[in-house]
């Protein structure tokens, strides 16, 4: 049984800093690990700041998937204050 390990670090052609390790046994992947190797500390930075500002900080996690981090933060704040956003009226959503 031949086991080898493939390490790809960094994963290129994505914005982040990702390391992938793959264990291969007899030509079949038997285990895999991924690591995010860039520490940002956004959670720590957000402490004691205005919740309305939070989404602008979390957006900076990534220069490619910027928007989803912002939206996740907005949803978290809305959930925290139990805010329900009314759906957009059909008339304005289709424009």
């Amino acid at each position, binding site marked *: 049984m031949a086991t080898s390990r493939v390490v790809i670090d960094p994963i290129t052609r994505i914005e982040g800093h990702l390391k992938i390790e793959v264990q291969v046994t007899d030509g079949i992947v038997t285990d895999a690990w991924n690591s995010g190797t860039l520490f940002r500390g956004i959670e720590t930075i957000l402490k004691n700041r*205005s919740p309305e500002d939070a989404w602008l900080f979390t957006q900076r996690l990534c*220069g490619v998937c910027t928007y989803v981090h912002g939206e996740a933060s907005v949803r978290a704040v809305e959930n925290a204050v139990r805010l329900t956003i009314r759906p957009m009226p059909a008339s304005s959503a289709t424009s």
Partner: protein
Amino acid sequence: MVGNRTMLSIAQEICPRPRRSSAPGPAPPTGDRGRIPQPHRAKGVKAALPNLTVPVVNVPGCPPNPVNVVGVIADYLLQNRLPALDSKGRPRFAYGRKVHELCPYREQESRCLKEQGCKGERCFNNCPSVKFNDGVSFPMQAGHPCIGCSEPNFWDTMTPFYGKATTIDGRSTSVRLTTQRPT
């Protein structure tokens, strides 16, 4: 860490290489995301590499406008000299005027976002004239106030981002006029 190397070690290797100039801009001038706390210890190029002898041009913004990044490089290639810089190392052709001065909505009471916390009066950049995405739009055109992202330490000096601008104890800040709590 990138490929088992720190960003600082990569910067120490790469930044001194150009003989004449470099414009490694796409980070804010100080490169930090909040002074207190600052768990990542990130810095701008000049602060991280104090012994660097190569001239540094800051092209700040979060993100900086690619027109300005390319503009600095193209200007250097055409003129064989660096563009005129301001006291913060920014090219004057892009950061010579305040966002508010260039904003088409500054005279329109219905569109001006000063009361919502717009930082255009304290921020030097050319967003309203160059715009983003090939000239499609810029924040105030989409109805969002400027957050002042091309000024040093803007995460601390420009926050809170929303609310009416005012000065308390000599420090510029924002005050929210109304706070609505969910019922």
